[in-house]
C-alpha cells in the first residue's frame, strides 16, 4: 500500500560518499538556523526604529548575500531547505520553514 510505504522514512546510506554529504548537511543546517535567527533579529531591530538608514541598508545587504551564499552551498549538494530540517520529536522541527 503506497500509504504504508511512506511510513518508513528514507534509510540513509553509510558509505564513504554519503558520509561527506551527511556531514555537510549537518553543518549547513546549523548555518541555516543561525542565518534565520539573524534575519529575525534584524527585522526586530529595524522595527524598533533605532537604526540609521545606512545601518538598515548594510544589514539588508549582508543578509541578502548570506541568503545567496546559502543557496549556492545547498546547490552544491543538491539540498533543499526541507532536506536540512531536523525533526526534534516533541520539540518540533529545528527550522521554522
Amino acid at each position, binding site marked *: 500500500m503506497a500509504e*504504508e510505504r511512506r*511510513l518508513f*522514512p528514507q*534509510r540513509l546510506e553509510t558509505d564513504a560518499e*554519503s558520509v561527506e554529504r551527511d556531514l555537510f*548537511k549537518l553543518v549547513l543546517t546549523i548555518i541555516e538556523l543561525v542565518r534565520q535567527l539573524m534575519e529575525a533579529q534584524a527585522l526586530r531591530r529595524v522595527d524598533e526604529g533605532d537604526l540609521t538608514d545606512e545601518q538598515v541598508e548594510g544589514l539588508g545587504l549582508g543578509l541578502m548575500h548570506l541568503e545567496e551564499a546559502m543557496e549556492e552551498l545547498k546547490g552544491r549538494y543538491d539540498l533543499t531547505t526541507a532536506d536540512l530540517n*531536523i*525533526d*526534534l*520529536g516533541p520539540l518540533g522541527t529545528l527550522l521554522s520553514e
Partner: protein
Amino acid sequence: MAAVLLRDAGPAVSAGPVQPVGDRTGESVVQRPQPQISLVDLLDRLLGSGVVLAGDVVISLAGVDLVQVKLHAMISSVRADMADPRQAVRGGSGG
C-alpha cells in the same frame, strides 16, 4: 480545488462506489466491506501516544549532542501499565 476527500465512507453512507454486500442467501452473517483505517490513524489510537519519527542524521560526531544519530520510527512510550503477565497470579483466583 477539490475541498472534500471522502474515503471509505462505508455502507452506511453512499458517497463512493457501491460495494457488494455479500451473499445473503447462504450466510447467517452479512459480510460488510471493512472501512480501511490508515496505519498512522490506527497506531495513534491503539498506542497510548502514537508514532513519532526521531531525528534524521546518520553521522555520529564525537561530542555532538544536538541531533539523534539513527533514523528509525520510535514509539514514544512503552506503557508501563501494559498488562504484566505476573499480575494475574498475584491477584489470586478471584474471578
